[in-house]
C-alpha cells in the first residue's frame, strides 16, 4: 500500500512537471519576461515553481530524517509574503538559468523524495500533503500560462 502510494506520488509529480514544461515550451524570448500574471512573467512563474521545489527538497530531507520541515511554520495567510521573499532574488535570473533550474530543482526534489521512507507517503501525511500541493501548484501555473498564451497568441 505505502510502496504504491510512493510510486503514485512520484508518478503524479513527474506528470505535473512534464505538463508544466509543455505549457512553457516554445515561448519566444521576448515574451518570457512580459508581465502576464499580476506582475509576474512566464519566466517568473517558472522560477517560482522551482523555488517551491528547492525549498521542498530541503524539507523532504528533513522529514526523512524525522526532523521538522520549514513548511510546518507556513500559514496560508502568509503565502504572498513567502512568495515575495523567494521571488525577489530570482527576478534577476536570466531565462537560461531559470530553465536550467526548472530541471535541476525538479531532480533535486525527486532525489529527496526517493530517500523518504515509503511509510511517510500515507494519505494525510505531511509528505503526501506537500506532494498534493506541489502537483496542484504545477497544474495551476501551467493553466495560467496556457490561458495567457491562448489569449495573447503566444
Amino acid at each position, binding site marked *: 500500500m505505502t510502496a504504491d502510494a510512493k510510486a503514485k506520488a512520484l508518478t503524479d509529480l513527474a506528470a505535473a512537471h512534464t505538463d508544466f514544461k509543455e505549457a512553457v515550451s516554445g515561448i519566444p524570448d521576448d515574451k518570457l519576461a512580459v508581465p502576464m500574471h499580476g506582475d509576474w512573467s512566464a519566466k517568473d512563474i517558472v522560477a517560482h515553481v522551482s523555488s517551491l521545489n528547492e525549498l521542498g527538497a*530541503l524539507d523532504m530531507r528533513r522529514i526523512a530524517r524525522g526532523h521538522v520541515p*520549514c513548511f510546518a511554520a*507556513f500559514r496560508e495567510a502568509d503565502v504572498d509574503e513567502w512568495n515575495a*521573499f523567494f521571488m525577489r532574488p530570482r527576478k*534577476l535570473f536570466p531565462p537560461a*538559468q531559470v530553465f*536550467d533550474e526548472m530541471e535541476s530543482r525538479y531532480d533535486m526534489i525527486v532525489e529527496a523524495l526517493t530517500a523518504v521512507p515509503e511509510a511517510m507517503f500515507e494519505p494525510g501525511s505531511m509528505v503526501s500533503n506537500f506532494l498534493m500541493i506541489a502537483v496542484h501548484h504545477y497544474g495551476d501555473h501551467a493553466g495560467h500560462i496556457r490561458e495567457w498564451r491562448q489569449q495573447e497568441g503566444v
Partner: protein
Amino acid sequence: MSDKSEALTALEAARRETLGAIDGIPEDKMTAPAFGDWSVKDVLCHLTSWEQFAAPDLQRVSRGHIPQLATFRGEDVDEWNAHMMRSRNLFPLPQVMFELEESRRQLIDALNALPDNLFAAGQMARMLADGLVHGEQGHSADIRDWRQKQGA
C-alpha cells in the same frame, strides 16, 4: 596559503569559536531568550540558515549563474533574517545542532568546488565567506558576553 585555504581556515576558526562559546550551556538555557527574543538556539539556527542559503548560491556561481545573494542589500538584513528564522523557529535543539554541522559540510563542499580565483579579495566567494566569518564571530562574542552576565 592560497586565498581559498585562507577563507576556509577562517570559517573553521569561527566555527570553533562558536562551538567553544556554547560548550556546556544547559539545554534549558539554550532555548531561553538571550538576545532580544532570540535564544542561543535561535542564533545557531540563524547561522545555519545563511549557510543553507549560501550553499546553493555557490553552486549557482560555479555554473556561471546569478546567485540569489546578488539582490541582497545590507539594509534588508533584518527582513531576510526574520523570514529565514520564521520558518525555522519550530526546530528543536537536536535538529538545530544537526543542521549546524550538516549545513557547514555542504557549505565547505560548495566552496571547495569553486576555482581559487573566486576567493581573491573582492570576489564573490571571498566576500561571502568573510561575511559568514564576521557574522559568526560577532554572534559567538555575544554568546560569551551573555554567558558571563548570566553565569550560564
